[in-house]
């Protein structure tokens, strides 16, 4: 009897969950990293977007919800959550689209399988934040006649040349490696100019040969070489190219003097085990340390350890509330951060393409545009940016700003994207 | 002594699916009585006792215990309220000490501090618990088991004794002994008999289940016979008659001989199996023995005399420390080679060592006969396999629904027939049978004895290792008595041989 009861309960649970959850639309599914379909409210009162840029008339049928798949290899970091929130809490409410998120992907096979699932669920386009095998993603999408775009990243030149003609490849908008290099350079330069001499570097994914982290670090080291005096060099390297090569060769960064400046400590990787955390704590407490330059998130790993010491932390990441708190608490001094709406233009390009208005270069190629970071060097600056970035009503790129892009020509589009500094963006959205 | 009723079972019914296990069973047990419950396997005797002891519930009927309605919902409840059962299967936990097993569920009483509400807290005072356990063991006459030993390190008999101690410690009014003695040697049995007699003297009651008719006749005051879930008859002590009891149990006269009827005792001179100067830690000491073609060799002794180990050494499943085992003059190194030499081994612990309970009759019989029916000694064709298995089922008349029935659902006797089928089917020439009739009812026993005799006449060689002297006397051409790992005495087959002659060499 007990067994029967238990069984019945079990079935009921399955039943209610399955039926109940099917219909209900939860408002915020930002945290869900299963493939979850977040349905958009139907927008019956909505009229055709009023886009009258130039002489072109853009007619878009808004009666049918367009499903767009999103591939993510990270679903929990502040950056990922901010991006997700912009799509599901803002864009999805403004346009008649529905974002279908993938699981947190771990490898190329996962990407492929997720794309299959997204195609099965009738996604018309896929925006990818996952980069295990971009060419495979593009080919698979093209094979399934689904549009594909890269958010917050770029293809290599070789890859771009191969796929720029492909009508299903919409393009990529994100920081180029040059941008990454510059970000690292600017960060280090700021502290050098303030007279600091003793640095520690957090290398993030350098041991995994992640290009953007290597270029950011190379930027930092180049700035040091330039400022370190006549004979300053990093292990003999003095140019950007040589330093990049050296980092690739070591899959890490060596401590030591660069002329009058010195790198007193280094930690790389994201092992996240006890030994690694101990290394981090040790690095933060290195004698005479003045600044920790992180190629990624620094405050989470070192913030607690520098409490009470006069050490500054500079990070590269995104505008998330936790960084504001870190700045207030003195655990973060400088942030080069992506703004969450930076993925707006890529959406606009996809949306436009799906609706029959592909945005291509004058030669008819896919987009390859670069877009950098917002730099906050004080809590006030951070709060100013963050207020705009986190707004669910009027984010950095509002609908009216993005509407400029839908159905636009290449020049309009690339001009728009290139004006990414805070003031420019705010101006555009007005 | 007052002969008042202690427990009464009225109109008890129990079904398992479509099988009627108990059909209107009525039993009355008086104080100061040891009542025997016997019947063939599947007759329902264990079902009755399992209901009385709270292991399961009846579908209908009622029980009255000490004048009140009795409906225990667990064995623990029953034990706490006066009815304890020592079961067939193992009831101890191997990973804890003897003392912990004895006081399982009662550790609290060894804690240091009273919590006020009748409960206690703090560490368990080990020394106190050990002392108490020792007392409990002493109480039932067991002195060779130390309370701090790990239970898993003890043998079957000692574990059984711990279980008995655990139950007796609760001082039950009714003790149920369910085929416990089959697992015990003479020493263990004596301990149980003593306890049973003491309970009788204390005006309590004992329900005793056993397959050993001699034992039951000796020990019990009354005897109730069950067959197919029904009470057939109850005999009082002065009405006990072995032949009558047997007939009542199986519902017909036993046809033909029980053991073999001849006293010929001859066999061929060819030695088929020989064990030379074998040494096995303390179990076998410089042991030498020969088995001949067409011989039934009986090996008797107390449980710990080394004879069970001898069986395993002969089949090469235990490596001796020294010495050799020769089959047809050839040294063998493992069980697979022994099987190639057409040897077969029926283990004492049937359910674990000789059978796979969670597999079908087909699986169990076919596994030893793969060489016999596999095409090119590799390919197993279902029809060939079925035919092979069915032949064994038919020739041994194994009672089953079909060959895919699980062995666990068979009675003890039929299980043992499956084991025999496994070895006979592959044409074994040499059989080592360790307690082959343990837990087997009379009808099957008789069939097995006759089978052994037939095999002997066909020139096969058999070793029977047994703790039951009567079957050794009844079956063996030659009887070897062992004690402490050595052969004490060898008897040729003879009409005059009796148990007393043998027992003096065993102890």
């Amino acid at each position, binding site marked *: 009897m007990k067994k029967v009861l238990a069984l019945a309960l079990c079935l009921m649970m399955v039943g209610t969950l399955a039926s109940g959850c099917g219909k209900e639309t939860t408002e915020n599914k930002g945290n869900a990293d299963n493939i979850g379909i977040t*349905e958009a409210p139907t927008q019956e009162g909505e009229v055709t977007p009023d886009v009258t840029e130039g002489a072109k008339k853009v007619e878009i049928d808004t009666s049918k919800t367009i499903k767009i798949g999103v591939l993510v290899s990270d679903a929990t970091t502040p950056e990922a959550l901010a991006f997700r929130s912009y799509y599901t809490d803002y864009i999805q409410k403004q346009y008649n689209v529905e974002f279908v998120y993938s699981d947190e992907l771990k490898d190329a096979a996962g990407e492929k399988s997720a794309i299959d699932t997204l195609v099965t669920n009738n996604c018309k386009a896929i925006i990818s934040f996952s980069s*295990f*095998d971009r060419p495979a993603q593009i080919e698979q999408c093209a094979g399934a006649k689904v549009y594909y775009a890269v958010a917050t990243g770029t293809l290599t030149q070789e890859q771009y040349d191969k796929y720029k003609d492909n009508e299903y490849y919409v393009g990529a908008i994100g920081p180029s490696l040059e941008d990454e290099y510059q970000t690292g350079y600017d960060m280090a330069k700021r502290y050098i100019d303030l007279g600091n001499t003793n640095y520690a570097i957090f290398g993030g994914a350098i041991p*995994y040969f992640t290009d953007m982290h290597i270029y950011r670090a190379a930027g930092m080291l180049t700035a040091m070489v330039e400022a370190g005096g006549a004979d300053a060099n990093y292990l003999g390297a003095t140019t950007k190219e040589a330093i990049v090569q050296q980092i690739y060769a070591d899959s890490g960064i060596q401590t030591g003097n660069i002329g009058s400046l010195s790198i007193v400590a280094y930690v790389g990787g994201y092992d996240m085990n006890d030994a690694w955390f101990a290394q981090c704590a040790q690095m933060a407490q290195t004698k005479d340390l003045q600044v920790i330059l992180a190629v990624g998130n620094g405050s989470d790993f070192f913030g607690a350890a520098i409490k009470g010491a006069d050490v500054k932390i500079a990070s590269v990441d995104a505008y998330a509330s936790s960084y504001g708190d870190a700045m207030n608490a003195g655990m973060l001094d400088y942030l080069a951060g992506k703004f969450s709406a930076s993925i707006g233009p890529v959406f606009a390009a996809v949306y436009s393409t799906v609706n029959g208005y592909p945005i291509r270069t004058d030669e008819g190629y896919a987009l390859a545009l670069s877009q950098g970071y917002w730099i906050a060097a004080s809590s006030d600056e951070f709060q100013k940016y963050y207020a705009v970035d986190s707004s669910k009503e009027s984010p950095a790129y509002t609908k009216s700003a993005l509407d400029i892009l839908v159905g636009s020509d290449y020049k309009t589009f690339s001009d728009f994207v290139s004006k990414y500094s805070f003031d420019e963006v705010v101006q555009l959205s007005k | 002594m007052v002969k008042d009723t202690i427990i009464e079972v009225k109109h008890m019914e129990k079904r398992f*699916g479509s099988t009627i296990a108990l059909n209107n069973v009525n039993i009355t047990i008086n104080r100061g009585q040891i009542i025997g419950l016997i019947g063939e396997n599947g007759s329902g005797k264990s*079902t009755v006792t399992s209901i009385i002891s709270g292991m399961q519930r009846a579908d209908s009927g009622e029980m009255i215990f000490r004048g009140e309605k009795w409906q225990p919902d667990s064995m623990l409840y029953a034990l706490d309220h006066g009815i304890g059962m020592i079961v067939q299967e193992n009831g101890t936990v191997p990973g804890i000490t003897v003392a912990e097993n004895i006081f399982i569920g009662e550790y609290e009483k060894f804690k240091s501090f009273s919590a006020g509400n009748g409960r206690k807290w703090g560490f368990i005072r080990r020394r106190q618990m050990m002392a108490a356990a020792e007392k409990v063991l002493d109480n039932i006459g067991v002195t060779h088991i130390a309370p701090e030993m790990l239970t898993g390190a003890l043998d079957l008999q000692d574990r059984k004794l711990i279980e008995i101690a655990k139950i007796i410690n609760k001082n039950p009014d009714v003790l149920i002994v369910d085929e416990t003695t089959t697992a015990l040697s003479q020493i263990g049995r004596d301990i149980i008999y003593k306890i049973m007699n003491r309970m009788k003297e204390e005006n309590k009651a004992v329900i005793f289940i056993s397959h050993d008719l001699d034992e039951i006749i000796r020990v019990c005051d009354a005897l109730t016979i069950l067959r197919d879930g029904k009470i057939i008859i109850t005999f009082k002590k002065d009405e006990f008659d072995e032949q009558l009891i047997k007939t009542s149990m199986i519902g017909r006269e036993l046809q033909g001989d029980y053991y073999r009827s001849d006293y010929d005792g001859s066999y061929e001179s060819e030695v088929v199996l020989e064990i030379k100067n074998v040494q096995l830690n303390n179990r076998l000491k410089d042991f030498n023995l020969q088995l001949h073609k067409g011989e039934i060799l009986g090996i008797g002794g107390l449980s710990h005399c080394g004879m069970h180990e001898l069986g395993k050494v002969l089949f090469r499943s235990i490596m001796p420390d020294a010495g050799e085992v020769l089959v047809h003059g050839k040294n063998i190194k493992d*069980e697979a080679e022994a099987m190639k030499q057409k040897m077969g081994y029926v283990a004492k612990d049937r359910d674990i060592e000789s059978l796979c309970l969670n597999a079908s009759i087909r699986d169990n019989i076919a596994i030893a006969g793969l060489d016999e029916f596999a095409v090119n000694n590799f390919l197993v064709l*279902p029809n060939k396999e079925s035919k092979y298995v069915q032949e064994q089922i038919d020739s041994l008349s194994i009672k089953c629904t079909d060959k895919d029935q699980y062995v666990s659902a068979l009675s003890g006797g039929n299980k043992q027939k499956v084991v025999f089928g496994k070895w006979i089917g592959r044409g074994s020439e040499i059989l080592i049978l360790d307690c082959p009739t343990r837990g087997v009812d009379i009808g099957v026993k008789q069939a097995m004895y006759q089978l052994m005799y037939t095999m002997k006449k066909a020139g096969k060689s058999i070793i029977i290792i047994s703790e039951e002297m009567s079957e050794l006397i009844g079956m063996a051409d030659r009887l070897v008595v062992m004690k402490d790992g050595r052969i004490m005495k060898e008897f040729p087959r003879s009409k005059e041989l009796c148990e007393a002659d043998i027992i003096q060499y065993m102890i």
Partner: protein
Amino acid sequence: MKKIDVQKQILKIAPVVALLILFAVFYMVGTIKDINVAYGMKAIINQSVVVAIVATGAVFIYTLGSFDISLGASVAVSALLGGIVYNATKSILLMLAVCVGIAVLVALFNSVLASVFNLPVFVTTIAMLSILNAVVLMLISANGTGSQIAVPSEAVAGLDNLGIKVLVLFLFEALCIFVFNFTKIGRKQKFLGSNPVCAKLTGISDKKMSIVAFVMSGIGVGLGAFLCIIYAPTLTKNTATSVGMDVIIAIVFGGMPVSGGARSKITAALIGAFSMTFLSQIMILFNLNLGIGQMVKAAIFLFVVFVATSNQRAKMLPR
């Protein structure tokens, strides 16, 4: 008796019924929600085939009542070495041979290690898991670009079609069913899993059988690795990481008794792998987010396993 038999038969096919129900639900809900069901079916085969093959081989190990947690890592190592060999030789056949060869070697190493040290095999597989994970990192950093080993996608694109995958699956399935049900080896495996003590006393060598079981599972791992490369030729340290756990779930989901033995079935792996994928796809259709989706999955999983194994737990007549 008849009634019990019928019940037994029903329970026997419970996993198959579950699979059919899941398929029906997927098809119906998919049609109602207007998804691309045909594409979805292809996706489901693609998503199931590697786990199905590896799990099918692993049934041999599970039959012995044993356990191998290093299967996923073994798939990864085999695939990586296969990829490296392909890049060096440009021979698909050689790549296949290396995948299977390495996987079998790893499996042999596992079982031989267990028999040399006289340990339960699952213990050696725990050690093997660490070793293989380390090998994955070493291979990746020593070869390829440092973060991945990529076989040119053009090289395997021709093989990346359902026909080949289904064929490989079918052939391997047939081989396993043959060995398991129609040879002495299979009988001995089952018996050994049911009762090792009795098996030993029936002349069955547990060491030999465990080696055979691991070799069969190694072949499955090797084929799985090969299909992994074909499916996603860019291999990273995360390649096949989920396979290990998925294999365990698939085998149980398919109605295989966890303790192995006589009731073991080769097809359990195949059925379980597909059921699992259908279930995941249905969860997606029902728009369930992580927490609830996982809970529903877990509940269904428990329910199916409960039904499928209830005849094994059924009360037996007291003897």
